[in-house]
């Protein structure tokens, strides 16, 4: 599997990840070699095998619908990059 640099830029956009212009060729080549490794999976016919999501085939544990968390907003916001009046601040989204 070989990727082109446009593919890498598109994937980087989907991942909301900035890639430096001069590093794109290196990423394109690294990702292509990783995908070549991954393509070894196709050597095996796995049709009909039930996909395994949890090694112990466990199912989701349910709990009672009760409040279990306490309000720790002030503590959590102490480590935020930018807050004001209890809100997280980001650049303006709506014009």
């Amino acid at each position, binding site marked *: 599997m070989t990727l082109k640099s446009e593919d890498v830029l598109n994937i980087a956009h989907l991942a*909301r990840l900035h890639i430096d212009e001069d590093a794109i060729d290196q*990423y394109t080549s690294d990702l292509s070699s990783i995908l070549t490794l*991954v393509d070894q999976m196709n050597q095996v016919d796995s049709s009909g095998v039930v996909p395994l999501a*949890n090694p112990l085939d466990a199912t*989701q544990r349910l709990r009672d619908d009760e409040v279990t968390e306490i309000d720790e907003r002030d503590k959590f916001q102490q480590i*935020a*990059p930018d807050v004001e009046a209890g809100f997280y601040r980001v650049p303006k*989204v709506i014009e």
Partner: protein
Amino acid sequence: MAKSVTEISRGLAAGKFSSVEVTQDYLARIAEFNPSLNCFISVTDELALAQARQADDRRAGGEADALTGVPLAHKDLFCTDGVRTSCASRILDNFIAPYDAKVIENFKSAGAVMLGKTNMDEFAMGSSNENSHYGCVANPWNTAHVPGGSSGGSAAAVAAGLAPGASGTDTGGSIRQPAAFCGVTGIKPTYGRVSRYGMIAFASSLDQGGPFARSAEDCALLLRTMAGFDRRDSTCSEQAVPDYPASIGRGVEGLKIGLPVEYFAEGLDSKLAAVIETAVDELRRLGAEIQDISLPNTGLSIPTYYVVAMAECSSNLSRFDGVRFGYRCEDPVDLEDLYKRSRGEGFGAEVKRRILIGTYALSAGYYDAYYLKAQQLRRMIKDDFQKAFSSVDLILGPTTPGVAFRIGAKTDDPVSMYLQDIYTISLNLAGLPGMSLPVGFVDGLPVGMQLIGNYFDEAGLLNAAHSYQQVTDWHLQTPELKV
């Protein structure tokens, strides 16, 4: 110095020394040797001494647990309330965790002392510790070589006697491989045995915490405290935790041990293979019955693992967005720029590669070909092990294909680095417990032997390793350190 967890626990109980004294000894060794080894990202000396004083008071009050006052180091991906938890990433360089991981809670309630937070590959992604924002850890046996990864700082700290025991996490070998490279004992428990709450997630269906120490006996003590049910981890097991220290004296007489032919095939260093064969002979002399077995899908484990791990990492690491915590880029022009540059500047190269591959594998049109296919192969790999365990009690092989390589030897080629994990990653895919223990040296560097058990048979692994360690002294060897 370089006392074991068990010796410290007994010495404290007998009043031979205080926790403050032991903690001061370790802090002094850290101050002396950490500048050259780089095992720790943060040394929490004031906190450690405060906890040691509390532990001594608790013991004086007659309320001591086996680990009360025992100093330990923790991998810097376990959240520690009020203490920086960096995951060895620039994006979390300023992150003071607002709560404790369950593992940390457990050690705190046992009264253990935290010496500091250990170095690692960024977000646990790596097999050499070279992917740390804070620089590589040096292998205490030969400082030009890597300590392994991702829990390289924890393994090297135990090997160098900068801590008698340490926590780690293992997603594809990140406890067992550095344990092997540094000549210490480490165990990755069954998936779900140790709570993942407060362990910064890499690949949630594979991640599992576990201890490093100098011996199986020490690991048994540490694992008893780490393990157990926690409702805040949705995949944590409700099975009761056995008394591991009480279950390690049973010997290996009549124990059936399988050697997978695929683990002794092409790719394994021949000198390392000879060391493993000598260790197998030792177990045979102790009464174990050795037989060959086959795990035919072993070769598929690397591609399967990297798809599962990268897909889950791309999803887990989407939480690092520069909005609520962690690094934020300078002067973002809009929200998208804030996300992209905070992440682009905050993550290192290997983390970015994995996010990109994972994003690709999960993107529209590719999900079935990659993630679903990998999950199918994952079941085939698990079935291989289940078939093997119908005829043997434990599986044995090398932990790694070779001993610790030189720093820089594999950094140019991510795929050659991934191939290092061939013997360890299939266990994470299957969710099985495994451990690595030192069994000799090749070219002055330690060799690790891996034992693999069936689900929740950590006691069986620890017992077999302990039996071996009763008649050998590889685990007692210590490197000569230079300042």
